[in-house]
């Protein structure tokens, strides 16, 4: 079992989720509450990363982030090392790829928030931030939960983009998904099966626990 790959995957998934959920909340909330002309277009745009095969998306991201690209150049100038084939590059790709999963559920949750409740908060003198923090966030929590689970799980399993942008460097950009893939490719079925089982079991317990906790908090709210 390749523990370093699992750790790396979990790290990537955790970072992706941690960064993407706020972004998703921001974008989802804006799409839900502001009415603007191009809304349908922006919504469609966000779904687009899903449409390309991951490896191909990864290829284009590689081009976009690579040393020859403006982004890559700027990053390298600032940080001193290339963006691609690094954890940071992986993370960036992962963020782009998972955007739809973070935005959609949160947007729906904001859409189903009754207007009056926000109005009530304002009329009670609550600042927009307080309203957001204490009224809106708890009420869109289940939407965020979906976003968290989808993003987390999808990052764990993501392979095409990661392989392309990260370059499958053991200990650095080789995630568990790629490690399993390598084993399958090498026809090492037992090792692959073992790693898959561990990954599945781990994720199952983890996601189940997240759901359980959120269920309990929701029930606890009742008390």
């Amino acid at each position: 079992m390749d523990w370093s790959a699992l750790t790396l995957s979990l790290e990537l998934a955790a970072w992706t989720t941690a960064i993407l959920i706020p972004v998703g909340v921001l974008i989802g909330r804006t799409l839900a509450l502001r009415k603007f002309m191009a809304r349908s277009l922006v919504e469609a745009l966000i779904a687009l990363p899903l449409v390309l095969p991951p490896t191909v998306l990864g290829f284009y991201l590689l081009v976009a982030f690579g040393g020859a690209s403006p982004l890559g150049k700027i990053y390298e100038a600032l940080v001193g090392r290339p963006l691609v084939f690094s954890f940071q590059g992986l993370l960036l790709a992962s963020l782009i790829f998972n955007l739809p999963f973070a935005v959609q559920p949160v947007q729906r949750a904001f859409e189903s928030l009754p207007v009056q409740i926000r109005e009530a908060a304002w009329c009670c003198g609550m600042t927009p931030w307080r309203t957001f923090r204490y009224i809106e966030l708890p009420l869109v929590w289940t939407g965020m939960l979906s976003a968290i689970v989808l993003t987390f799980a999808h990052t764990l399993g993501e392979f095409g983009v990661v392989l392309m942008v990260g370059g499958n460097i053991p200990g650095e950009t080789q995630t568990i998904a790629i490690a399993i893939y390598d084993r399958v490719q090498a026809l090492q079925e037992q090792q692959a099966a073992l790693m898959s089982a561990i990954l599945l079991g781990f994720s199952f317990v983890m996601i189940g626990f997240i759901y359980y906790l959120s269920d309990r908090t929701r029930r606890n709210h009742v008390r």
Partner: protein
Amino acid sequence: MYADRNSGLQVRLQQILPIPLDAQLHCDMGELLVLVGPSGSGKSTILRCIAGLADAATGLVRFEDFVWLDTESGVRLSPQKRSVGLVFQHYALFPHLSALENITVVLDGLARNRRRADARELLELVNLNGLENRRPDELSGGQQQRLALARSLARDPDVLLLDEPFSAVDQITRRKLQRELARMRHHLELPIILVTHDLDEACVLADRMCILHRGETLQSGAPYEVMSRPQTETVARLVGLSNLFKGKVLGHDSVRQITLLDWAGYTLQCGHHPEVQPGQTVNWVVPPENVILHRRHRPSRGERENPVNGVISDFVVLGGDASITMLVNGDPHKPLSFSLSTHVAHRNGLGTGEHIRISLLAKGIHMML
């Protein structure tokens, strides 16, 4: 009309769409203004405009020296900046928070303990002690309404806007809350605008009453004034006056200070209304207490004034009072209502179908254009 006065809350709102509005309100510090009007007349909309949740096409909302809304100069404060406490008609409680939290969450800037203490005090005020930890959906309708009332006070607002705040609570609690409100009003000295459908409540609570109809403020004044001297037929109907009729002005007698009215074959002597023209058709109303029964055995005061004959069509005893409807000359289109002590009614042998004679006191007759 209040444009020059600079105290309390002043409101002027005009628009055509989406909801026609043509409203002018003023509510002084420490004054309680009751907004009355039929369902759908725009009462909630006006409160929403004052609170900053809705915008009128043109208008002005000013509290003391602070301009909250002025469409002309483009001022438009956000709801947060207008220090109002608003009880929503549908409460709009925070569903995920307990009763206590519904209030503490509003109390920004205070220490935690202080917040909880303040919130508990407010809950006590509205008789919700013991239910602090219930979420709104575990409260009954009236309990929710009281929570909404408590929450609206938490902000320590400069203006209180109450949209039917007692509609769902029982009479005992309602009376308690009304008393609290009255106490608070004198204590806090803030303008309070209250929407209600309960005219009795309006009369008991209101310093002034404002009648709203299709978005238009028709008349405002002291409740008794509005109820007894409506300026138009519409107002008379809206405040639920019975004994509303149309008659023709015969002329004025400036010596005796009366105006003569032709109605149902009678010539009625009325209080002097120099503003009406002879020959004009006017609406007039006589409050039930200015209708005097001619008793069988002893003459009453005022029996000579405007005697009118009729047949009793409806006779309902409710406790100590009997409420009587009489058809003038037997005409079903001219029902006249008044009430009597039950024992007087019995002593005079009243009952459905009985022919009676009454007098309409001249000074009680009120004319409208």
